Structure formats: C-alpha cells, structure tokens
C-alpha cells in the first residue's frame, strides 16, 4: 500500500487525519476505526445539524403549504398560480438556488433553510390539496345533510380523510429535504454535506465520503419509517396494511373525472 502511495506521488494524499491509523493513511475504502474515533468531532455534530436543518425546513414548509392548500381548496382559482410558482422553484437545481439566495441572506443557515422550504412547498401542497379533493362527495353530502357547517366538515370530515395523502406528502418532502440539505454545506459548513467537502479537502478521503453518504441515506430511511409509525399513532384509521406498497392512486389520479363539486356546493 505504501508503495502505491509513494508511486502515486505525494500531493495526491495530503492529510487523512489519522496519525497512527494505517488504514486511514492508506486511504482504505472504509476505515471503521477512523469513523468511530471521529464520530464525536465530525459525524455526530454533522448528523445533529442535519436533523435540525431538516426539521425546521419541513415544519415551516408544512405550515406554509397547509395554509396555501386550504386557500386553494376554498378558492380553486388560486391553485394554478400556487402550483406554477412552486413548480418553478422546484425546477431550479439546488446548488444554483442556494447561490442565488446568497446575495439576499448571505452565507448563513437562513439561506439554506429558505431554499429547503422552497423545495418542500410543491411536494406538500400538491399532496394536501389532492388529499382534500379526493374526499368522496357523497361523504360530504352526508355531512351536510346531518347539518354540519363548512368549518365542521373541514375539521371532522375532510382533514381526517386527507391524512394519508398529507402523510404521503410529508414523507416525500422529508426524504427530499434530507437529500437536498447535504447540498446546503456549500453555503454553510453544516450538516452531512460538510464531511463530504471535508473529504474533498483532505484529497478525496474515502472513509469520510462513504460515512457521510451512508448516514444521509440511513437518516432518510429512518425518518420515513418514523413518519409511517407516526401516522399509525395519529390516524390509526388511515393505516392500511401494505398501503405504502400499493400503487393504486396513480392510475386513478390521471383518470379522475371531474366531480360536480361546485354545483353541489352552491345548491
């Protein structure tokens, strides 16, 4: 190994941080010892920062998207503009969006959070609106017949029935945000993207690359599982067996025929 390093030339491997660590010195594929000994100084803090970034972004994004979805649900003419604006934001490559925001908010965590919230919006909004719209009209009719006010219908009928779609949106948005938050390290040296850039700075240190990427993937996976579990607690009626694996909605969504919602509502 040392021979190869020497043959490869000095500048290729400037500093792999492991003083006595043979594996790290040779830039082995994954040096478990280096990983565990740098957990406290590199990976642990990065993971915590990452979780905080994502929690803040998804929470704020959810509040905004939820308000927008209620607006679009009550006043359908608002839906198209909201979808267009959030689609445009969603289309901008993350690295570019982060940099475009820098003149406004600087190299701060605020910049990263704003960009992450922007990316959440479309995912959350579309799912919440779809969830509300997919409540069967007959159910609403029955509620109206029982004398429920529009407000009661929203709180007791529409929202509970929309829970699966809302959680679907939360899961997609959370996993996406976890992925995009790594890019935020370009702007502030925080989150699980930071060790990746650190690894580049050390001369492409493999262990650090793999550890950071694996933690990001693991975090996305765990977050998704937690949201599924949370849905089971919050809305046990909505947790169906194998629900997450059945691709039933796709076909239905594109074949959906318009329902005479407005006609009924005006009557």
């Amino acid at each position: 190994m040392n021979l190869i390093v020497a043959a490869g030339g000095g500048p290729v491997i400037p500093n792999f941080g492991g003083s006595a660590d043979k594996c790290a010195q040779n830039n082995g594929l994954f040096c478990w010892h280096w990983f565990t000994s740098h957990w406290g100084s590199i990976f642990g803090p990065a993971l915590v920062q990452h979780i905080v970034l994502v929690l803040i972004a998804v929470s704020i994004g959810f509040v905004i998207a939820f308000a927008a979805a209620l607006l679009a649900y009550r006043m359908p003419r608002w839906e198209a503009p909201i979808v267009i604006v959030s689609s445009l934001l969603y289309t901008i490559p993350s690295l570019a969006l982060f940099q475009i925001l820098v003149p406004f908010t600087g190299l701060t965590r605020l910049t990263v959070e704003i960009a992450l919230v922007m990316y959440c919006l479309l995912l959350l909004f579309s799912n919440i609106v779809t969830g509300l719209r997919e409540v069967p009209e007959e159910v609403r009719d029955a509620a109206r017949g029982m004398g429920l006010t529009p407000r009661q219908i929203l709180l007791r009928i529409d929202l509970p029935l929309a829970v699966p779609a809302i959680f679907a949106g939360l899961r997609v948005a959370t996993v996406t945000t976890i992925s995009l938050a790594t890019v935020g390290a370009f702007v502030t040296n925080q989150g699980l993207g930071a060790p990746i850039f650190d690894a580049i700075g050390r001369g492409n240190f493999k262990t650090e690359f793999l550890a950071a990427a694996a933690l990001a993937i693991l975090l996305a996976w765990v977050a998704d599982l937690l949201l599924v579990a949370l849905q089971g607690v919050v809305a046990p009626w909505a947790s169906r067996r194998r629900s997450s694996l059945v691709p039933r909605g796709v076909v239905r969504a594109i074949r959906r025929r318009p329902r005479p919602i407005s006609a009924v509502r005006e009557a």
Partner: protein
Amino acid sequence: MLALGSSLGTQFLDSFKFMANNTGHLLHDTLSTLALSGAALGVALAVTLPPAVWLGHVHRGSGFAIRIANLGRALPELGLIAIFLALLGLGFLNVMVALVIVGIPPILANTFTAVDGVDPEAVDAARGMGMTERGIVFKVELPLALPLMFAGIRTASLFIIGASPLAAIAGGGGLGEIIVNQASYGFDGVLAAALWIAALALLVQGLLALLQKALTPKGLKVRARATGERAPRIDVGVADAERIAGIEAPAA
C-alpha cells in the same frame, strides 16, 4: 436597508456583466452540462424502459418496481457522488453512474404504473383481434401509457439536470464547474452560472412539456377534453407515498 439594497443590485449587476464578458465560456459549459445530462438520461432510459415495460405488460413485480423506486428516492445526489468518488474516483464514469442512478426511479415507477394501468379491456380487445403480444405492447399499451411515461421521463430529466451541477465536484465539468470554483471565478461568476443553470433547467422543462403535448396520441387528447382530464405533470409524488411511498422528488 438602503445599503443592503444597493449591494444586492451590484451583485446581480456584476453577475450579468460576467455573463456578458464570458458568454462563450458559459455557452461551452452549457453544452457540456446538456451533453452530460442527455447522456445520463439516455442510459437511464435504455436500462430502465425494457424491464419496466415488460413488468407492466405481464402485470408482475409491482412490489419490486415500487421498492426500487423508493430506494432510489432516499439516495441523496451529493451522497451518491460522494459514494462513487470513493468507489470510482474522480472523473466522467463516477458522474455518469451517479446521474443515471438519479434518473432511474421516476422512469421505472411511472413506466411500470403506466403500462400496468392500461385499460385491460383495450388489451383484451386487441388480443381478440388476433394481435401478437409484441403488437399489443407497441400498438396498444405504449401509446396509451405514453403521457404518464413521459411525465416520469420529465421528472428524471429534472432530477438529472438538478444534480448535474454537483457533478463538478467529481470532475464532471459543465456549469457546476464555475459554481463550485469561487476562487477562480469570483462570486460574480458563481452567481452568473447559478442564474444561468436555473434558466436552463426551466427552459428544458418547458420544452419537455411542449414535447409531451406533441407526443400524446390524438385519441387520448380527445378523451381528455371530453372528460376534463389534465395531462400528467411533473410527478411530485402526489399520493405517491400512498401509491408508491413517494416515487419522485428532489431537484438537487
């Protein structure tokens, strides 16, 4: 506040000056970004379409298709590039593999769902008329599945172009090269390239939306008008988590 406003203006003004002075450079990088993204999309399509169409045709493996799609969703683009930096080192191959992986999940999920969801009565009618299985796939299922399939391809292109600037850290070239290299180009250059690639991504998505309209078979358009259906847009995983635990997403 005034000072902030004026410095803001200056920064954007400087970036436009950079664009004016470096148009050739930007255009050259744009071409290499497009070439890289196009090649990645092409490989992703070539790898994904045949098995996805086949699985949809025989209505098998929905669990498999969905699981792959979900697995793909959880992969952060930057993480993928980092993994392949460790496994393959710097260079074109690394970037290409990462971008192809980014593109596969939406194509797989949408193609499978689209072909699997073709009206069984249409397929039965075709079979009754004596069409071969091959004929059914190419003349009945694919035309009917095309709009939803194309939505998946658009989503894939969105992800790939979104991830393409990140490729620069692995030596992939393109506009990302300027964005990650503030030391050489200054913030004017970084901002210019960021604005440029944002415009490029929007332009490509706009063109693909037009292409989707052109590709939709006439019969489907007529039906859509009659029933008030809308063409599938970029798939953002609406109810995916329900339907597919969230096929699509990030623009990385």
